[in-house]
């Protein structure tokens, strides 16, 4: 069965911009083909999958064909006794005190995506569905923005719960580059593995540029002992957007600030916070403290 749609209708249905729908079609996220009359067509089952992904009810019901009988749907019932001693959170405020009102789900911008929302996550935790929680990617699509917590009348620690669930994902199955970044940082001093020589050359080069552009006499201070402020760096800047570092440098120039960047362990972004890796997080923070001591600085500036 074919589902025919106009871009504008689908955009309205999912609350996104028309171009977003076009981009999704282009990238294959929506498996649709152009049909006659500025309309697109896709398989009805693909449309249904899309609705499921974003927690929407299909606007157009499937007509004809066989429907699954109701009693065959749904997971097997959960035996509560099986979860005793299987809790993975330290106290009741992480899940048990939840009133199941669903306010958190209303506050969450991705409630419904993958059929999940904060209320369901909290219920799953209370029921001890550890494997299901650890294996769902929803936990990583969530941005831990805490809108749910802000809305919760019982002050359930939803974000801490999410982070704990993230920490239980086997490290080689952490989606995207954030665990790789943590390993890079531990082994090479920054998330993107920028070699020390390249970094130092870049700092000097950019400093000279800034001096020519608008700040005569400027040079980038590296490893200056006794500087008032140690400045840490988000590695994406030296890696991809080096000119962006100059804005802060220009401000330091204007204020006559006494500041420095460390030649080693200068990374200011700690991905252990997001990947749920407390040990790595502590190690990386410890290195910054060591830099503070070594360079005898008074203050520390974080990149954001």
């Amino acid at each position, binding site marked *: 069965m074919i589902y025919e749609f106009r871009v504008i209708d689908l955009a309205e249905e*999912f609350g*996104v*911009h028309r*171009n*977003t729908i076009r*981009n*999704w079609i282009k*990238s294959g*996220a929506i498996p649709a083909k152009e049909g006659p009359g500025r309309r697109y067509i896709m398989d009805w089952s693909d449309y249904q999958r899309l609705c499921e992904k*974003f927690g929407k009810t299909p606007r157009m019901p499937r007509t004809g064909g066989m429907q699954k009988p109701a009693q065959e749907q749904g997971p097997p019932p959960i035996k509560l006794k099986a979860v005793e001693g299987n809790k993975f959170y330290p106290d009741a405020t992480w899940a048990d005190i939840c009133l199941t009102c669903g306010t958190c789900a209303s506050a969450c*911008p*991705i409630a419904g*995506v993958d059929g999940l929302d904060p209320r369901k996550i909290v219920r799953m935790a209370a029921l001890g569905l550890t494997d299901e929680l650890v294996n769902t*990617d929803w936990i*990583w*699509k*969530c*941005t*831990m*923005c*805490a*809108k749910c*917590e*802000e809305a919760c009348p019982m002050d359930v620690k939803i974000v801490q719960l999410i982070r704990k669930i993230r920490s239980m994902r086997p490290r080689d199955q952490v*989606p*995207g*580059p*954030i665990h790789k*970044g943590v390993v890079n940082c531990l082994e090479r001093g920054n998330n993107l593995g920028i070699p020390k020589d390249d970094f130092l050359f870049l700092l000097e080069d950019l400093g000279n540029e800034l001096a020519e552009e*608008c*700040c*005569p*006499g400027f040079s980038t201070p590296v490893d200056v002992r006794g500087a008032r*402020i140690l400045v840490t760096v*988000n590695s*994406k800047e030296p890696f991809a957007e080096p000119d*962006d570092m*100059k*804005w*802060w440098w*220009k*401000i330091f*120039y*204007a*204020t*006559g600030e006494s500041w420095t960047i460390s030649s080693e362990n200068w990374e200011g*972004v700690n*991905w252990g916070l*997001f*990947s749920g890796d407390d040990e790595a997080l502590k190690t990386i923070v410890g290195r910054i*403290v060591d830099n*503070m001591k070594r360079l005898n*600085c*008074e*203050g*520390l*500036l*974080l*990149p*954001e």
Partner: protein
Amino acid sequence: MLERYKIYSVFDLLLEYYNEGRININREIHKQRTTYHDPCNYGRKSLKTFGHGYFEEGRIITKACAPNFVDMEPNREGNYCCGAGGGAWAMPFKTERVFYGRIKARQIQETGAELVIAPCHNCRDQIKKSLNQEYQLGIEVKYLWELVADSLVLPVKN
């Protein structure tokens, strides 16, 4: 350790410079309507974790540089996430990330602002490089410190 060293967020340091009169700002450079994005980590989450949310600091500095200011609704602790926090900017779930950001895009659109100030790397990237294109916002996006740097009247030094 915390007694020995002072930890500066970008807000603390910029506000220190501003309050001590160490930066001279030209208010004529950014005349366009400007709004301010509250990052979850510095606002809502900082308030809960450390007892202080950085809500006003960023606004004081933004308004000092761009006087034609308007807030999004809701804002401060009620603000919506850009959609890319918590590592999501780097995650392989682009479709979901853009879908997440639809509320942020709408919030920005409703202010009619031409310039959006983001004091967080992650939020700035999502708003500038993703939402701006996906939702055709037609906005300019700057870091808070970029706004300050672009507004600076530099001292004459020899």
